[in-house]
């Protein structure tokens, strides 16, 4: 197991050197990839010295000095937090998010804050005010979004682990496009305290890693009840054990469903790779059956109607009066309007306006309320599947990464790329993406879903796929 071996290596080799090498790589190559907005070099170097002392005494935390990059919509005390926007270009976070506290306690070293689509509005990492992130596998292609820098910094070898956030696929999409592991936890498993909200009923932070063990390790650390986020629940915190104890023959106990709707309109090359992995799991004893999820085809409109509404409400706090970018005006209305006009990017404006429109009294019933009712239908679909199966398997993305700039001008084509990932957020269940092959030299991700708070089942599935793909 890659991440486990790395931790063992660090206990006998120099941590300072390990961190130094990461920084050197970043300085050499990140000008091109653009995965970081703010680096934390001095602090990371100091931490490596401190943690080295702990390692020498054998009293280090679970993360043992591993480098971790953090999406720039999660607060790290005294570091700039921009959310990829001009709005917060100079905002310095005054406190640590709950998950950052936990990572620091376990001796994770925060190496920098990652580039992202502006306020997480985007699916390909190109809408950041700080310029697009490039895909380390081929810099002409998008890395996926919105946690573009998290996935890219990991794929480029700038960090050992990363944290992103997933509202409708923002962890799984870039994980798939960059060829790393990404995990969207169940709603309520990981605290959102210190996460800048985009759509509060759908989103949450989650880990990126180079293997299932790395995902489980971070999940053990960041999950659990937080009095500062009332939707959170207790966590078993035994995810690493689940992965470590998984044996080849445990594959036989997995009951896995695949839905034809998750393959409709999917690139043939991706489809073939995923179907091949499904056959492999079946040949190793997993029980695989076809099921139907009839409402998935409506997931995009339902999801975006909810996102627009919650997003326009979340953005109302950015008026420039308290903090952030500010432009004056003759009166308060004009001052706020000018400020917002000159600091928000096009996709942010689009969503703010659409959200305002569909929640106006005369249109609310036609759009927003209907979406909320339809959301129940998606949740019921999944409930029915998970009454009989442990996991639902399919591709993460319907297409391979596209070239940078290709989808910027057409919002509907950008939204359509989220078709396979948004349902998990609408239903609040957990889902993952892991690399299982390549087409045209670009990575292909396999997506697994498990029921709400069934993270252990999902990790077992990820480990089974990892082993079936020849992983160690």
């Amino acid at each position, binding site marked *: 197991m890659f991440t486990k071996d790395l931790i063992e290596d660090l206990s006998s080799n120099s941590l300072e050197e390990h961190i130094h090498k990461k920084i050197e790589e970043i300085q050499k190559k990140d000008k091109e990839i653009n995965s970081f907005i703010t680096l934390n070099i001095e602090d990371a170097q100091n931490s490596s010295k401190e943690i080295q002392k702990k390692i020498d005494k054998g009293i280090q935390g679970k993360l043992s000095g591993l480098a971790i990059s953090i999406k720039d919509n999660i607060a790290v005390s*005294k570091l700039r937090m921009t959310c990829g926007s001009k709005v917060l270009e*100079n*905002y*310095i976070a*005054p*406190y640590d998010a709950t998950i950052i506290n936990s990572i620091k306690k376990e001796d994770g070293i925060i190496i920098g804050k990652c580039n992202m689509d502006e306020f997480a509005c985007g699916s390909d990492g190109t809408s950041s005010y700080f310029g697009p992130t490039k895909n380390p596998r081929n810099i002409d292609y998008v890395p996926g979004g919105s946690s573009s820098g998290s996935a890219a910094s990991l794929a480029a070898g700038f960090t050992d682990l990363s944290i992103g956030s997933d509202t409708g696929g923002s962890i799984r999409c870039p994980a798939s496009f960059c060829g790393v592991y990404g995990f969207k936890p169940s*709603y*309520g498993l990981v605290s959102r305290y210190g996460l800048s909200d985009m759509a509060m*009923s759908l989103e949450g932070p989650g880990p990126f890693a180079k293997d299932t063990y790395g995902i489980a390790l971070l999940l053990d650390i960041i999950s659990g009840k937080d*009095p500062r986020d*009332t*939707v959170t*629940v207790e966590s078993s915190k035994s995810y690493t054990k689940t992965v470590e104890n998984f044996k080849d023959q445990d594959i036989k106990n997995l009951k896995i469903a695949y839905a034809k709707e998750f393959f409709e309109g999917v690139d043939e090359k991706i489809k073939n790779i995923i179907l091949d992995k499904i056959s492999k799991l079946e040949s190793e004893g997993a029980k695989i059956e076809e099921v139907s999820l009839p409402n998935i085809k*409506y997931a*995009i*409109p339902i999801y*975006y*109607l909810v996102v627009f509404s919650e997003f*326009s409400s979340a953005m*109302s706090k950015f*008026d420039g*009066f*308290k*903090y*952030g970018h*500010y432009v*004056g005006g003759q009166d*308060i*209305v*004009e*001052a*706020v*309007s*000018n400020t*917002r*006009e000159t600091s928000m990017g096009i996709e942010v*404006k*689009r969503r*703010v*306006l*659409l959200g*305002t*429109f569909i929640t*106006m009294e005369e*249109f609310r019933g*036609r*759009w927003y*309320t*209907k*979406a*909320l*009712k*339809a959301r*129940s*239908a998606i*949740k019921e679909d999944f409930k029915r599947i998970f009454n009989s199966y442990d996991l639902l398997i399919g591709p993460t993305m319907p297409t391979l990464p596209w070239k940078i700039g290709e989808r910027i001008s057409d*919002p*509907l084509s950008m939204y359509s790329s989220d078709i396979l990932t948004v349902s998990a957020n*609408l*239903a609040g269940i957990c889902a993952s993406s892991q690399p299982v092959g390549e087409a045209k030299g670009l990575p292909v991700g396999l997506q697994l879903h498990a029921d709400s708070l069934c993270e252990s089942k999902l990790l077992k599935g990820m480990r089974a796929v990892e082993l079936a793909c020849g992983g160690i």
Partner: protein
Amino acid sequence: MVETIIDDNVIERVSEIARLKLSEKEKEKFREEFERILEEFSVVDEIKVGEKELYYVIENVNVLRKDSEPKPFNKINDIKNNFNKKEDGFIVVPRNL
């Protein structure tokens, strides 16, 4: 079909409520885009829906906690430093009355 036709008057009102100034060119661009997006999204009409509006996917609503002793807060300066203007230890915000 979308029965919601977005005319200039509606775009004007949306821009005002959202506190987001739009140029004439932007108004036209967004009006056209929004009609296209909502036209596509009107497939939600095909779904058989019940009466339940699902705002949250979790059961634990109205979570309360016990009152606890207030703790000292030592981040005041870190917060103040983010404000654009300060004077004599106070935060200066634009006049809004």
